[in-house]
C-alpha cells in the first residue's frame, strides 16, 4: 500500500492533504491520501468510478462529514491552516473553498440574480449596491453575463443545463473563494457546454486554485496543469499532467490511461 508522493512541485502551496482517510460507516473510501495542490493552477483528479476521487474532493471543503456515518482523519492544509483543526469552522472553510457539483443545482425557488447573490445575502450582506456589483462580476467571470443580463429575475431553473452549471459557478465565485472544487462539472452537459466549462476553468485559474474531478481523461489532459490518479481509495500517481499522460511511472496509471481497465 505504498503511495508515491509526487516530486516536489515548484509552486506556492494551495492545498496540502496529509494522510487523509475517509470512511462511510465501515467502508474505507480513502486510504491515506497525501497530495499538494498548487495555487492558481488547475489540478485534475482522475480515476475509475468508486475510486474515491469525489470523496477526496468533499474532504477538502468538509462536505464529506455531512453524510451520516461518515468520518475523516488526517489533515488538509489550506495555506497554513488545517481545515480539520479543532478550532476550524466548516462553515468558514466552505466560504474559502467553493464547490461546483456534478449536476447543476441552482436553488429552485430563486431567480438567477438571487441564486448568485445567495451566498452573500444569506450570510447577511445588506449593501444592495455591493451585492449587485458582485453578482455582475461573478456572472461575467462565469461567462454568463451576456446571456442572462436581460432576465436576471427569471428563475435559475429556466436556464439550459450548461447555463445552469455556469450559474452555479457564478454563485460559488460570488463569495470570492480562494479555491474552487469542481466535481465532474461537465458530465451532464453537451460537448459545446463542456468546452465552455473547461475554458472557464482555465481562465479562473488565473485568480484561484481549481481542483477538478473528472472521469474523462481527455478533459483532464485539456484542462489541467497537474493530474492525480486515484484507484481504490489511494493516490497512485501525481504529477504534471503532461508527464502523467505521456510517461506514467506506475503500471496501473498506464493501464488506466491507455484504457485497459476502468
Amino acid at each position, binding site marked *: 500500500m505504498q503511495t508515491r508522493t509526487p516530486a516536489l512541485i515548484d509552486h*506556492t502551496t494551495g492545498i496540502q492533504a496529509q494522510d487523509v482517510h475517509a470512511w462511510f460507516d465501515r467502508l474505507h473510501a480513502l486510504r491515506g491520501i497525501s497530495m499538494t495542490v498548487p*495555487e492558481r493552477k488547475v489540478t485534475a483528479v482522475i480515476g475509475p468510478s468508486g475510486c474515491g476521487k469525489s470523496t477526496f474532493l468533499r474532504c477538502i471543503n468538509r462536505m464529506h462529514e455531512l453524510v451520516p456515518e461518515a468520518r475523516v482523519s488526517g489533515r488538509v492544509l*489550506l*495555506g*497554513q*491552516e488545517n*481545515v480539520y*483543526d479543532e*478550532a*476550524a*469552522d*466548516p*462553515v*468558514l*472553510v466552505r*466560504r*474559502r473553498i467553493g464547490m461546483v457539483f456534478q449536476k447543476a443545482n441552482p436553488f429552485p425557488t430563486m431567480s438567477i440574480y438571487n441564486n448568485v447573490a445567495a451566498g452573500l445575502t444569506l*450570510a447577511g450582506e445588506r449593501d444592495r449596491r455591493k451585492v449587485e456589483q458582485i453578482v455582475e462580476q461573478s456572472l461575467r467571470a462565469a461567462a454568463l453575463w451576456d446571456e442572462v443580463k436581460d432576465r436576471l429575475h427569471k428563475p435559475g431553473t429556466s436556464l439550459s443545463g450548461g447555463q445552469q452549471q455556469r450559474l452555479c459557478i457564478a454563485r460559488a465565485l460570488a463569495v470570492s473563494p*480562494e479555491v474552487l472544487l469542481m466535481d465532474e462539472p461537465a458530465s451532464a452537459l453537451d460537448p459545446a457546454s463542456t468546452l465552455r466549462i473547461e475554458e472557464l476553468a482555465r481562465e479562473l485559474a488565473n485568480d484561484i486554485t481549481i481542483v477538478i474531478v473528472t472521469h474523462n481523461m481527455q478533459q483532464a489532459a485539456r484542462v489541467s496543469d497537474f493530474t492525480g490518479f486515484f484507484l481504490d481509495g489511494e493516490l497512485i500517481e501525481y504529477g504534471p499532467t503532461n508527464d502523467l499522460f505521456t510517461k506514467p511511472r506506475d503500471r496501473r496509471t498506464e493501464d488506466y490511461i491507455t484504457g485497459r481497465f476502468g
Partner: protein
Amino acid sequence: MSVAGRVAAGSSARTGDRPFQLLLAVMAAAVPLIIGAVLVALIAAASPAIQRFGVGFFVTSTWDPVAEEFGVLPFIYGTLVSSALALLIAVPLGLGVAIFLAELVPGWLRAPITFFVELLAAIPSVVIGLWGIFVLVPWVRTTLEPLLKSTLGFLPLFSGPPLGIGMLTAGLILAAMVVPFIVAVSTEVMRAVPRAQREGALALGATMWETTRTAVLPYARSGIIGAIFLALARALGETMAVTMVIGNVPQIKASLFAPAYTIPAVIANEFTEATSDLYVAALIYAGLVLFIVTVAVNALARLLVSRVARGPAQIRE
C-alpha cells in the same frame, strides 16, 4: 496569502446550528410531551371520581347526577356496539373499495375516486350529523327499520318500534365516517405489496380476483387489520354526528332500534351542565378511559400498518 485563523471559529458563523437543532428537536418532542400532558391532566382532574368509584365505574349502570352516583356501563356498551356495528358495515365496503382502487380501477378514475373518498373524511362531523338528523333518521324510521322488522323481526336485534333515532342510525353514520380511513390505509398497504408477489400469481394464470385473494390480501393482512383498528379508534371517539342521531339514553337494549348513548356523546352533552365537582370529575374520568383506549388502539394500528407499508422514509432512502 491566507490570513491566519480565518477558518478558525472566532465568532463562528456556525454557532446557530446547535441551538437551531435543539429548537427543532423541542418542537418535535412537543407531540409526545403533549400526549403525556393530556394523560397527566386528565388523571389529575378525574381523581375525585377515580377515588370515589374506582373500577366499579365501568361495571355500574347508574348515572344519577342528583345522587352523585356515576357508572358508565351503558355508555361503554353504546360506544362499543355502535363502533362494532360501524365496522361490520364499513370493513367489507372499505375493503371492496380498496381492492377496486388498488387492483381494478382504470387510471383516469383513480384520482377522482380517491379524492371523493378523502372528501368524505373531510366533511365536518357536525355537518354529517345535521344530514343524519334531517335526512338519514327519517329514512331509517320510515323505510329501513320497517323493512328490517318485517323480514328479520324475529331477531331481538330488530325488534321494537322504529324510531329512526338510535343505535342503528348511529352505526350507519359512523360507518360512513370511518370507511375513508379503511379505504385509504388498505389501498396504501395493498399497493405496497411487491410486484413480484402479484406477478407470481398472475404468471400461474390466476385471475385478478384469485391474485388478490391469494397473493395481495394475505401479504397486506396486518396492514389491513391496522386500518381496521384505525377506523375503530375513530369510531370510538366520534362525537358530534353520533350524539345527534343516537338518542342519548343511557340504556342497554338488545334492539338496535332503541336509543343509546356513548362516552363522547355524554361528555359533549352534559359537561357544560355538570354542576358539581364530582359530576365533572366523572365525565373527565370517562374521557380519560376513552383517551387511553383510543391511544392504545391507534398505537396498535400504526404498528400493524408500518409492518407492511414502511414509511416513505425507508422506501426512499
